[in-house]
C-alpha cells in the first residue's frame, strides 16, 4: 500500500515536471558529434516539437520503470502471500452443508469465461513485457496474438460480468471501512466475523479493477492494436495520433500493473488462502459456516429472511 502511494506520487511528479517542460527526460541528440549544431534544422517539424511531452515520458518510463515495476509487483506480491501462507495459513471452514447457492449457473459460466480471458491475457502480457529475456521472435509474437484473442473473449463477457454483480459489488460504507480496518481478518489465525455482504471489500476491489481497469485496458489496447485511426477530437486537444498511442501505452502499463497485483491476489485467495473457495465457484454453493465468518452481514441478512437457521454446529 505504501509502495503504491509512493509510486503514484513519484509518477505524478514526473508527469508534472515533464509536461511543464522543466525536465527533458531523454536527451535526443540530433546533432552530429562534432560541430554539429548546423545539422539541426532551424525549423523542426511540429511532431518533433511535441515529442518532448509524451514521447520523452514514454521513453523514460519504458526504459527505466515499466519492466522493473512489473517485476517488483510480480515477485513482491507472490512473496508477500507466500509469507502470509506460511505464517497465518489458509482459512479452513466446514464445507459440509447447510449450504447456500451463492453463484447461480449463469454467474459461474460468466465468471469462468472471464477467467479464461484473464488466463490468456495476463501471462501473454507478461511475456511481451519480459520478451527480451525470452529472445523475442515467434513465441512472443504469438503471445501478442493470444493477448488480442483473450481481449475479444473479455469484451464478450464484459457486459454480462458487470450486469450480474454490479449491485452486490456496490460499496457499503459501514461494512467496507470496517473490512479495511481489520484487513478482512486475513491477519488473524482464528475465525473472526468479517463485516461483508455477499462480497467482501477485497472482492469488490477486484471486481471494480476488472471492470473499470478492464475497460481502460480495452480502450488503450484497441488504440495500440489498430494504430492507424483519425479522431477529430485529437486535434482539438492538441494531440497527435502518435501522442494518443503514447498515452495509451503508458496507461496500459500502469493499469496492467494494478490488475496484475489484484489478479495474483485473487488467485491466492481462491486457490490457497480460503479452502473450498474454488469449489464454491464450481458448484455455486458456499457453506453457512464460511458465510458466517467471511460474509457476516450477508449471513445475518439470510438469517433474518429465514433462509438459514442459527442452530448450526461448527464442528472443527
Amino acid at each position, binding site marked *: 500500500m505504501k509502495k503504491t502511494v509512493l509510486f503514484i506520487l513519484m509518477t505524478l511528479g514526473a508527469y508534472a515536471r515533464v509536461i511543464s517542460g522543466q525536465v527533458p527526460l*531523454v*536527451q*535526443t*541528440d*540530433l546533432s*552530429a*558529434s*562534432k*560541430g*554539429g549544431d*548546423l*545539422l539541426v*534544422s*532551424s*525549423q523542426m*517539424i*511540429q*511532431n*518533433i516539437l511535441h*515529442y518532448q511531452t509524451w*514521447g520523452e515520458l*514514454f*521513453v523514460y518510463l*519504458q*526504459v527505466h520503470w515499466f*519492466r522493473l515495476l512489473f517485476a517488483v509487483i510480480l515477485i513482491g506480491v507472490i512473496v508477500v502471500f507466500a509469507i502470509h501462507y506460511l505464517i497465518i495459513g489458509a482459512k479452513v471452514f466446514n464445507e459440509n452443508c447447510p449450504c447456500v447457492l451463492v453463484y447461480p449457473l449463469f454467474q459461474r459460466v460468466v465468471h469462468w469465461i472471464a477467467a479464461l480471458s484473464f488466463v490468456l491475457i495476463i501471462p501473454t502480457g507478461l511475456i*511481451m*513485457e*519480459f*520478451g*527480451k529475456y*525470452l*529472445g*523475442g*521472435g515467434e513465441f*512472443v*509474437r504469438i*503471445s*501478442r*496474438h493470444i493477448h*488480442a484473442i483473450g481481449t475479444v473473449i473479455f469484451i464478450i463477457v464484459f457486459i454480462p460480468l458487470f450486469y450480474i454483480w454490479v449491485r452486490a459489488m456496490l460499496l457499503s460504507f459501514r461494512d467496507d471501512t470496517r473490512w479495511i480496518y481489520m484487513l478482512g481478518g486475513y491477519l488473524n489465525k482464528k475465525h473472526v466475523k468479517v463485516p461483508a455482504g455477499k462480497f467482501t471489500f477485497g472482492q469488490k476491489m477486484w471486481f471494480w479493477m476488472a471492470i473499470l481497469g478492464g475497460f481502460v485496458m480495452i480502450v488503450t489496447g484497441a488504440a*495500440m*492494436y489498430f*494504430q492507424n485511426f483519425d479522431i477529430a477530437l485529437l486535434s482539438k486537444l492538441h494531440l497527435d495520433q*502518435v501522442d494518443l*498511442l*503514447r498515452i495509451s*501505452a503508458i496507461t496500459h502499463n500502469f493499469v496492467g500493473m494494478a490488475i496484475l497485483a489484484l489478479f495474483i491476489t485473487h488467485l491466492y485467495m481462491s486457490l490457497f488462502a480460503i479452502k473450498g473457495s474454488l469449489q464454491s465457484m464450481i458448484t455455486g454453493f458456499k457453506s453457512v459456516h464460511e458465510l458466517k465468518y467471511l460474509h457476516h452481514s450477508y449471513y445475518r441478512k439470510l438469517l433474518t429472511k429465514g433462509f438459514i437457521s442459527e442452530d448450526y454446529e461448527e464442528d472443527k
Partner: protein
Amino acid sequence: MSYARMKFYCDDRRCIDCDGCSVACAEAHELPVGISRRKVVTLNEGVEGKEFSTSMACMHCTDAPCEQVCPVDCFYIREDGIVLHDKNICIGCGYCLYACPFGAPQFPEDNAFGTRGVMDKCTMCAGGPEPTNSAAERKLYGQNRIAEGKVPVCAAMCSTKALLVGDGEDVSNIYRQRVASRGHGVQSRPYGWSTAYGR
C-alpha cells in the same frame, strides 16, 4: 582512428518536394504499398517565407530511443552509427513508433489475422543482420548498397542534392560551405531584391 558516423541531413532550402527520394526508396527496396521508409513533408504550406519541404526517414539517432524501448531488444547500432533491427526478433508491438521523434517505424500488415506485422524502417541501405547481400537479407530489408560502397539510394537520386548522407563531419562541412556561399544565414527575400527595390 576515428570511425565514420553516418548521418542524414535534408537541406530544406534545396528540397523541392519532388518525392524522388521516397519513390526511389520504395522502388529500390520493393516496399509494399503503404510502407514509407522515407517521406517528404511540406510545412507551413502557403505561408509566405515560411514554407519549406524536407525529407524524413529514420535519422539513425546516436541514442536511438527505439533501441532503448524495444521490449525484445531487436535493435542494434553499427559502429558507423546506422541503427538496424532484426525482423526475426521483432514482435511488431509498436513501441519503437511511440518512442521515435520522426515517425520512422512502419508496420506492414501481417497475413495471419490481417494484423500489424513486424516493423520496417529505413536501413540507410545497409540491410540487416542476415549475411550481407544474401537473398534473405534482400527479402527482409531490401538492398544493401552500403556494403557495395554505394550511397543510399534516396540521396543518390536527389536531384537538387538537398538530401545529404555520409559521415556527420563531411555532411556538416558541405552544409557549412553552402551556408557560407549564400553569404548569410537566413534569407528572407529573393536575392537582389534589396538592391533593386531598397528595403
